[in-house]
């Protein structure tokens, strides 16, 4: 088949996955938050409220779209695209299985980080263009947070790259196969400080509570999306959830061995064609469930405390841990050679 046709089919597959993810995650969030807060969550629309999010999306589609007059029109219309497209592009490098990847990029990890750092640009455009004090403050906060936590996130991913020796996500997943001491799966989660640093900076990067600075309902009304209505707001809302999915997928890929089950050899898994992608998505949803539990309980950190945490604690400690991992790898190599 023509190469362009394959690319278009893969794009449609990624788009379908993202939309389904968005719909399922919004429903899952409202249900998990409901059960967490001693109430039921959506129940009336469809069995157990399953049709709730499709109805929300259809309603958003059919609402009027007023453009305030004091708004910078070009940026106002462009901002949702600049926020939505990068979070769609990040699906390219995700390793659903060693054969099922949209594009097996040799620099998969770096590509995802590069694409994810365009999103603050879109948020700033949205906040500044809507000429509204609340959205300006929301945008400034969101950009301040994501800019501050881009660096510790990169640094926290370095130990994994050093252990795996490659940036290709497929290789990282294969490097985590097998077991150590016959019992413990050879995942990179045992490098716990790197996991913690990556988890915290990832939480802030995707604007999860306790760091949901961008649209802190109780302080900044609706954050940077105050002036957005109907489908534009829908896109911003959808891309926030797909960011969460991407962050959870990265977490699973880097630390929880991608699509591999702990004690099952990788070859047996990939024999059954469709199993690895399903396993990968299921593991990602388990991680997202924990993110939602955190969202339902913890209060919000103040902006300057969070930024101080970023620059004064996360960055120095991630650099220090980088050095320690280097030493550990070197020592383990020397021992392996010695034996």
């Amino acid at each position, binding site marked *: 088949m023509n190469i362009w046709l394959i690319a278009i089919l893969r794009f449609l597959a990624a788009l379908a996955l993202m939309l389904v993810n968005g719909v399922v995650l919004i429903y899952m969030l409202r249900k998990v938050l409901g059960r967490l807060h001693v109430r039921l969550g959506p129940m009336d629309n469809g069995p157990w*409220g399953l049709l709730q999010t499709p*109805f929300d999306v259809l*309603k958003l589609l*059919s609402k009027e779209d007023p453009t305030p007059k004091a708004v910078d029109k070009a940026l106002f219309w462009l901002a949702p695209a600049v926020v939505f497209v990068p979070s769609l592009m990040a699906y390219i490098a995700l390793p659903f299985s060693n054969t099922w990847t949209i594009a097996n990029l040799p620099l998969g990890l770096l590509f995802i980080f590069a694409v994810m750092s365009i999103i603050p640009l879109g948020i700033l455009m949205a906040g500044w263009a809507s000429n509204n004090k609340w959205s300006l403050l929301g945008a400034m906060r969101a950009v301040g947070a994501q800019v501050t936590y881009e660096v510790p996130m990169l640094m926290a991913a370095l130990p994994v790259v050093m252990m795996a020796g490659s940036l290709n996500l497929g290789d990282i997943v294969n490097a985590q196969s097998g077991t150590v001491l016959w019992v413990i799966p050879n995942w990179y989660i045992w490098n716990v400080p790197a996991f913690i640093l990556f988890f915290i900076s990832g939480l802030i990067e995707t604007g999860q509570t306790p760091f949901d600075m961008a649209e802190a*309902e109780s302080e900044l*009304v*609706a954050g940077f999306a105050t*002036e*957005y209505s109907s489908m534009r*707001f829908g896109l911003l809302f959808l891309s926030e959830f797909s960011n969460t999915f991407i962050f959870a997928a990265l977490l699973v890929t880097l630390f929880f061995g991608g699509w591999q089950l702990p004690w099952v050899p990788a070859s047996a898994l990939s024999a059954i064609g469709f199993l690895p992608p399903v396993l990968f998505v299921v593991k990602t949803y388990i991680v997202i469930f924990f993110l939602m539990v955190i969202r339902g309980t913890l209060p919000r950190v103040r902006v300057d405390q969070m930024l101080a945490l970023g620059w004064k604690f996360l960055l120095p400690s991630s650099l220090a841990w980088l050095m320690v991992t280097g030493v550990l790898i070197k020592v383990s190599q020397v021992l392996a050679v010695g034996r």
Partner: protein
Amino acid sequence: MAIDKLTGENSTLFIRSEQLFDVARRKSLWYMGFGIACCAIEGLMHASGPRYDFDRMGVFFRASPRQSDVMIVAGTVNWKMAPVVKRLYDEMPEPKFVVAMGACASTGGPFREYPNVVMGVDKVVPVDVYIPGCPPRPEAVQYGFIRLMDKIKAQTEERLAHARSDSH
């Protein structure tokens, strides 16, 4: 709707899509909580609380009028508040509805003798559903929302029937 200009008033595409979106509008009403007085505690906090959960019906709290369909006026509206209510109502996108919750918002309630109080919020904005009570119980507020959904359904059918009858 631009679609009815393109494909004509009574094309099946327009009618079917209107019916579909009408169901969606009814099933996901996002309200801009506008808690002014005592009704806010009963109607907004308790109604979305653990026992009478609004989220069951797909009714969800949005802080900005740009993203909300229903404006619940919960409390007394006086002269200083009237322009704010009017402005927030104007800033809501088009298929918008107003629920006047409680005696104060419907007719001025126990304070209607006081000259500073506007006797009913329908003097300022067109109201769809009045919920009596001072304060109305959370079940009454949810019943008001169910009646609002029926009213939206009736409005759409009447509009479509009107369109169909024009064509014959």
